[in-house]
């Protein structure tokens, strides 16, 4: 009986301990899985809120706030009403700042989100804002590459930016191809640090690669 009791205590302790880190991993995985359909379901706020709650509760994990920033940056990018973009991008920045404060060091993935946020700000009024944000976009992508040359995401974002740049300015489909190829190479070799570490982008890459195959 005593053994059983001890066994129970042990089991309880184990399950509780497991539930502490386990529930973090489980919750993160569940929400990361939801990212795949965010564009279709348009549930940016819900997912960002989920990540923010995890971040608020954990306090010492940078990834929840990172993902919240990523989702808000995506929303700011796809938002059609220009008058709402700035507020969304500012919200992404607020999350990203929390992530940086926890991480306390430069990080390639965080720089990628910075470039996405700057792009969202700029597209509100490109003519008058390029002076300020164009610089931030190119600098943060450059920094992201320097910090981790194996990270495919800065290359992918650069490729996308170039893809949508008019041909007269050296952009366009053909000009962007080498960068997409490079990103594909990097994705093939890329191993995320953990199950919940940033690993998005492969779907976007496939989407663009399909366009090249199509023609």
């Amino acid at each position, binding site marked *: 009986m005593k053994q059983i009791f001890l066994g129970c205590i042990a089991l309880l302790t184990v399950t509780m301990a497991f539930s502490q880190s386990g529930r973090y991993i489980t919750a993160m995985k569940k929400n990361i899985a939801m990212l795949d359909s965010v564009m279709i379901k348009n549930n940016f706020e819900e997912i960002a809120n989920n990540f923010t*709650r*995890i971040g608020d509760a954990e306090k010492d994990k940078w990834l929840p706030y990172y993902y919240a920033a990523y989702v808000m940056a995506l929303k700011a990018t796809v938002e059609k009403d220009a*008058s709402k973009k700035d507020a969304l991008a500012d919200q992404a920045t607020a999350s990203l700042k929390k992530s940086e404060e926890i991480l306390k060091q430069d990080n390639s993935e965080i720089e990628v989100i910075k470039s996405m946020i700057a792009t969202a700000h700029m597209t509100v009024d490109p003519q008058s804002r390029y*002076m300020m944000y*164009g610089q931030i976009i190119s600098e943060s992508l450059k920094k992201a590459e320097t910090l981790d040359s194996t990270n495919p995401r800065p290359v992918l974002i650069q490729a996308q930016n170039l893809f949508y*740049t*008019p041909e*007269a*300015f*050296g952009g366009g489909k053909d000009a962007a191809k080498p960068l997409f190829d490079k990103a594909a190479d990097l994705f093939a070799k890329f191993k995320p640090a953990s199950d919940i570490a940033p690993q998005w982008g492969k779907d976007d890459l496939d989407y663009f690669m399909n366009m090249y195959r199509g023609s």
Partner: protein
Amino acid sequence: MRIALILIIILSFQYSWGQVTISGRITNEDKKPVKGASISLKDTYDGATSDSLGYYKFTTSEKGKQVFIVSCLGYENYTDTILIQEQSIEKNATIHREATRMEAVVITVGTFEAGDKNKSAELSTMDVVTTANANADITSAIKTLPGSQQVGEKDGLFVRGGTGKETKIFIDGTLVNNFYYTSEPGQATRGRFNPFLFTGTIFSSGGYSALYGQAMSSVLLLESIDLPEGTSADLGISYLGFNGGIQKLAKNKKSSWGLSYGYTNLQLANKVIKPKSDYFKTPNIHELNGNFRIKTGRGMIKYYLYLSSSKLGFRNPDIDSAGLKNAFSLTNFNMYHNLSWKQKLGKGWKMQLGGSYSTNRDKIGGQLLDEHNQDIVATGNPLYDYKTFHLNNKGYYANGRWVLEKNLGGLSALRFGNEYNYTNDLMEYTAYDGQKSDIRIKENLLASYAESDIYLMPKLALRAGVRAEHSQLLSLWNAAPRLSLAYQFKDRGQVSMAYGKFYQTPDMQYLPSPDKLHFENATHYILQYQKIANKRILRAEAFYKKYEDLIKSTGNYGQLTAINNKGFGDAKGIEIFWRDKKSINNIDYWVSYSYLDTKRNFLNYPDAIQPPFSARHTASVVLRTFILPAKLQINASYTFASGRPYYDIYYNESDQLYKIRRQGLTKNYNDFSISFNYLPSLGKKNPKSFSVLVLSVTNVPGFKNIYSYDFSADGKRMIPVLPSSKRFLYLGYFISFGIDRTQEAIDSHL
């Protein structure tokens, strides 16, 4: 078996024991559902996001007292304590809109803002630079906005029935005394400062803040640029001259310095544009610009230096005689220093310190010439003899100010400070016969101001301020209240009102006075509607402006001296501004229209009359487009102003009164200008330099514009005052090394 049972019990305890459902609805103060709000229990993962009807639902295994939080973009956080027991909970919450800069109403009455920092600015810096008829002159670009007149024969911005002297210009908060190159008779001059020096421009056509004063009509506030993006060198060459400079950014990106030199000579240009005057000394200008900027944590120190030396001389036919001519020569030296420090001090305090010092020297010569351009020494007729003179003007100006700002929570703020303004003008006049007379006028003006922005609601803002000034010259005090109110409607349109009193010391050019004078003043009442949505801006303003205590003068031959403050006047009008970047693909344009009804009796006016610097109708259309494949930006502008009145005012000796001998209306003013910017290095991979080729032509169709008329002393002859040349043509090539601006250009057209 028993173990298994216990295990099951424990596990089920863990997982199902008290799964409680919490649900409810989130609404705002208008009882409308809020979508996308995040509902959470503090320090847990548990929570949900409200749906489009505001409903939410989640389950939790937490027990006891929990902190229930609702957060949503644009709303203040909602916090409450809830007690979770066995049964499900229904928890509704009403959340309140937060006063954010994005959502809240902004006081815009009377002001136009051009800037890259403020998201609600009506114009950008590039707009100012690329306005077709402006030739990169700041005030010329401002003249395409409502409220400003198309006055081409005198310096300055003539706003809502005011003279050019009623507009004051400030750089980084401090007054600039000689913003324009020294004026030449019958011709407006450009501003001295390069528009690329400034990141923000605020043009107020009335009702402006208590932080500024001594301007009865308008203020133009210029904010200089912060640290440059990188180290670079620039070179420019045009048929008017050349310029070169470097800008060095420290490795840690915390400080920078820059130096540039420019030389302008109109010799070649005068052959092309054929000026109305006959130049015997080609206008030439040497200019030196210097700056340093230092980041100080959450602040910035900026220093700016400007030095210039210029010469010119020209002849024009004399108005009082047939065959005689007048020669005008000018040598100018100008130096301007501006040092400013902006710093956030923490706990919601901000500080702004600024000081400027400048000196200006003009050597002006007038000479009466015969038809062979030989000097005429003395004729015995004072009317002719006084056309030969020498005038040495020496001006010393210092300006200092401090402003402290305290955030009062939300967007409400309190600002207060002092401004001190010192001017010392010495005029040494030598008449044709060697008789000298010196006039020295010194002024010490001290001002105190306090102003508060109060957000009564996010949609309702009030700005109340007061400014008190003491003039040593007049030995008088004044106190001026300023008030504005803005309310935003649900559709983001907003209506604003402004009231204010604006005092000004009589202009130095009419001093010293034999009598005791006091401040001139104007009272403004402005009503505005503005809506900014979807890259379109509509604004309409109606105003009434009452002038009191304007100076009246005595004197003849254009030399007027103030004698009392019995002048008065008023101005009323309606102005409309429409900007649209969206409707026509790839074309950005604005239209402005001003209606002005004004009369005033000041200086030597015999009565209250419509002043010659006011047109009833003024309109501008400014358009720009970028043709990507050609790498070409095209800017065009059309400006119209209805005819302005002209008067021949003379002094009737027998009645001892000023009278109008002749009057009329000039013909309408028209200008169509176009400019092209060609950017050949666009699209090149990793270019080492970035270059721009600029071609601009003003008055392309060659409209024969007349600004006004000059009259001979006997009133028998009148000569039209014409633009300095019918057309102005500019051709220049600029190249910048070091910074790759291609990315900027690309990004700007994504």
